[in-house]
């Protein structure tokens, strides 16, 4: 994005600062609108997909009446939610209640920014991309607590407290397991990390196959990520059978929809991080080395990236419709007694590996043995 703006601005003859500013703002607004539209579309389809996946797993069909194969289901849901009466409970803390959904949504949307969708497509190429993602995703807990507290409902409060405890705890294994991967390319820039994973038939230089420690780190990250986005078996903040609907019990219509969409947005974000850091991002497997036109390569790369992300999202849905829910103390036990120590030892192991072998992965070693 910044590169794009720079390129356009340098290509322009005018030097008027105001025009330059206006053009910059225009480009930013347009690109934001595009990303917003795409992410809304994705979130709509994700809700549809969730219901279809649930249907498949539960030996039924799922939505199929609205439009072909029920594809317009999310349109109907969205329009309906938009038109619902907006209830703010009388005893609610008005301001907290009103702004919480927006914060949740903004935060989940902001996490789309540093993602690298293909070689050239990304909104902002941050050199602290990973750090930014981790930082921004923990704001969710604050917004959820705001909404929960503002609702002035005891069930909501339970949900909010649980959500904060859970998200704050699970940050630790997430960060520790991400570190185990990041130390190999030694960069926080998402594009650099992806670029590092090229070659090796397009899959063997993925960080997940780099060494045994990154493999473990991937699983630790994925489990912790499911907890981070409050999905079953870690969905205690909105556990339907225990605390009604958790932190969004009192929310109606569009405000509820924001929470709902943010959940799917978060799912995308954590899956995208997993795909970027461990599964080679937009690296095309097997045929990546063949020469092809730039536009085709870009399209393929975007396709590959989204396929990887959607596969991970499918796994999350699959897990959701299979497993029972953990209790809140067992959730903490899992985090502090299992995931955190494993991630910590794993990080030490990975560091030793890097210290001894530099950035050589298992594939590099085997390849060298065979080529010798």
């Amino acid at each position, binding site marked *: 994005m910044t590169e794009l703006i720079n390129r356009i601005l340098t290509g322009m003859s005018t030097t008027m600062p105001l025009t330059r500013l206006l053009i910059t703002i225009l480009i930013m607004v347009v690109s934001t609108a595009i990303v917003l539209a795409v992410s809304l579309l994705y979130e709509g389809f994700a809700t549809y997909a969730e219901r279809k*996946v649930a249907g*498949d*797993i*539960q*030996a*039924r*069909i799922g939505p199929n009446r609205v439009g072909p194969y029920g594809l317009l289901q999310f349109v109907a849901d969205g329009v309906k939610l938009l038109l619902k009466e907006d209830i703010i409970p009388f005893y609610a803390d008005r301001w907290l209640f009103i702004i919480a959904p927006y914060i949740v949504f903004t935060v989940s949307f902001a996490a789309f920014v540093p993602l690298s969708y293909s070689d050239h497509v990304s909104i902002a190429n941050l050199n602290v991309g990973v750090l930014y993602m981790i930082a921004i995703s923990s704001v969710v807990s604050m917004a959820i607590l705001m909404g929960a507290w503002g609702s002035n409902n005891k069930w909501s409060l339970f949900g909010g407290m649980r959500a904060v405890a859970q998200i704050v705890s699970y940050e630790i294994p997430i960060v520790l397991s991400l570190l185990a991967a990041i130390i190999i390319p030694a960069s926080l820039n998402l594009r650099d990390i992806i670029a590092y994973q090229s070659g090796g038939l397009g899959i063997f230089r993925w960080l997940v196959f780099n060494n045994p420690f990154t493999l473990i780190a991937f699983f630790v990250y994925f489990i912790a990520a499911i907890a981070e986005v409050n999905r079953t078996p870690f969905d205690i903040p909105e556990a339907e059978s225990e605390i009604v609907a958790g932190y969004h019990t009192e929310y109606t219509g569009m405000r509820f929809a924001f929470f709902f969409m943010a959940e799917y947005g978060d799912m995308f974000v954590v899956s995208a991080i997993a795909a970027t850091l461990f599964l080679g991002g937009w690296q095309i497997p097997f045929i990546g080395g063949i020469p092809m036109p730039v536009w085709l390569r870009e399209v393929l790369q975007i396709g590959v990236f989204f396929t990887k992300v959607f596969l991970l999202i499918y796994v999350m849905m*699959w*897990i959701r*419709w*299979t*497993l029972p829910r953990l209790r809140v103390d067992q959730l903490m036990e899992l985090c502090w007694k*299992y995931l955190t120590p494993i991630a910590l030892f794993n990080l030490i192991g990975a560091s030793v590996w890097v210290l001894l072998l530099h950035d050589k992965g298992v594939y590099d070693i085997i390849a060298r043995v065979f080529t010798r």
Partner: protein
Amino acid sequence: MAGYFKKMYHSISTVLTGLGVTIKYGINPKTEVTQQYPEVKREPPDGFRGKLFVDINICTGCTACARICPVDAITLKTVRDENKKLRPVLFDIDNARCIYCGLCVEACPVDNCLYFEKKYEFSAYSKQDLISHFGLGEVKPAESKTEDKKTEAEKEGKEAAQ
């Protein structure tokens, strides 16, 4: 320490077993058991207890059904016609109150007079629409002697169906 890893192994293996069960359903569309209702309708079996129907022409007006009904869903009013036969001028069944228990059908002494239809979808916007009227309406009375047996299920000792 061994227990720690054993626990971990146990958790992972059982979770994977569960995931194995669900993925079998997830990828195999043949496991679907859904019957797409408005298009696919299952014929109810014989003896299905659906909506009540009265063949009013062969009804003898004995009021056995109204008396046995545990919820007073049947309102019956009979008049003696010129042949001194009891004729049901009013025979209303309140489907909103009926509990489809089948006691009235068993109590009816005439074959194929009061029976259940295989019809069960008849929701309505108004409760009045759920009352089915079967009565003959006006029947020329023999003398001016009418009998009103409207839901007198309380008459003790006279519960005999015939």
